[in-house]
C-alpha cells in the first residue's frame, strides 16, 4: 500500500485539479470524495492536501474564497482557474504518455528467436 501511496503522491496535483473540474469544493469534501472513489483504499493525508492547495494557488491553478455556512462556520472553498484547466489537460496528456511508456518498459519483453 505504501508503494502505491508513493506512486499516487506524484499525482496529487492532478487529482485535486480533477476534483475541482466539475465544481468548487473544500478540503474535507475533496478528501472524502477521494476515499469514496477508491473504496477507502487510498486516503489523502490532510498535510498533503493543504500543501497541494497552497502550491496550486501560488501557481495560479486554483483560487480560494471563504464561504459562509448556515451554522456560522467559515469554510474555505477552492475553484479551478482557466490556467488550472489548461494545466489539468496537460497533466492528463503527460500521464497518458507516461503510462504508455512505462507499460512498455515494465512488461517483460517477448522473447524472440534472437535470444535463443
Amino acid at each position, binding site marked *: 500500500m505504501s508503494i502505491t501511496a508513493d506512486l499516487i503522491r506524484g499525482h496529487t496535483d492532478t487529482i485535486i485539479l480533477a476534483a475541482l473540474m466539475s465544481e468548487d469544493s473544500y*478540503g*474535507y469534501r475533496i478528501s*472524502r470524495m477521494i476515499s469514496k472513489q477508491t473504496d477507502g483504499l487510498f486516503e489523502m*493525508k*490532510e498535510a498533503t492536501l*493543504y*500543501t497541494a492547495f*497552497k502550491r496550486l494557488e501560488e501557481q495560479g491553478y486554483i483560487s480560494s474564497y471563504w464561504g459562509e455556512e448556515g451554522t456560522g462556520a*467559515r469554510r474555505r472553498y477552492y475553484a479551478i482557474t482557466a490556467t488550472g484547466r489548461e494545466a489539468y489537460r496537460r497533466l492528463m496528456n503527460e500521464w497518458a504518455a507516461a503510462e504508455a511508456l512505462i507499460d512498455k518498459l515494465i512488461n517483460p519483453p517477448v522473447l524472440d528467436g534472437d535470444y535463443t
Partner: protein
Amino acid sequence: MKAKLKDYIEIIFTDAPQTHRAHELKEEMYTDLCEKYDDLVAEGKTPAAAYHAVISGVGDIGELIEELKKEAGTRASEPVREKADEPRRARFYTPEEREIMRKYKNRCAVMSAVAVAMYILCWLPLVLLSVLIENSEVGSIVGLVVMFVMIAAATSLFIIQGMTKPEFMREKAKDDDDDDDDDDDTPRNKKGEKHPVYKAISGALWCLTVVVYLGVSFLSGAWHITWLIFLIATAIDNIIKACFELRS
C-alpha cells in the same frame, strides 16, 4: 472532543509563524477536521475512536510549516517585525468564539466608559447639593449618599466585566501568563496566583474603605475612632479571600 481537535491543531502548528495565512490555515483545518469527526461519529465510531482516526489522517505537516515560514520570510521584513510583536502563541478562535469575543469587547468598552465617568463625576452631586440646598447638612448627606451609590455602581460595573469574561478568553490569558513565567518557574508564581474576581473585589473594597473613612470622619468628626474602619476592611478582605480559596 472538538476542543481536543483544536488543541491538537495548536500543537502541530507550534513552529508555524504567526502570520495571517497560518491563522487561516488553522481555521480551515479545524472546520474540515470537525466535519470529518462528525461523519465518523455518525458512522457509529465512538468519540475517542473518531478522534484518533482524524488525528492519524492528518499526516506530517512539516513541509507545510516550512512553506509558511518561507512565505513569512520572503515578505518585506517590516510586516514580519510587526507580527513578532503579536502575542507569542496567539490562539485562533472559532467563528462563534470570535463573535462572542467581539460582543464582550464592545460591552466592556461601554461599561468601562460609564464607570470611569461615574468615578470622575461622583463628587459633583455632593458639591452641587451642598451649594444649592439651604440646609447644608441635609444637602451634604444626600450628596454623600449619591456619591457612594455612584461609586458602588461604577465598581460593580468593573466586577461584572471580570466575571462575565468568556471562559475561553480566560484560558488564553492564563496560557499567556504561564508563558511569561517560563523563565522563573518558582512555586510562588503558582501559589500566589490570585483569582481575577477576588482581585477586582479586593481593589474595590479598599477604594470604598477610603471613601467611607473620609466620609464618616468628616461628617461625624470622630477621627479618634474612625480609623477602625480600616481594621474592619482588612477583616472583610481576608474573609472574601478565604471564601475564594475554599471554593477553589
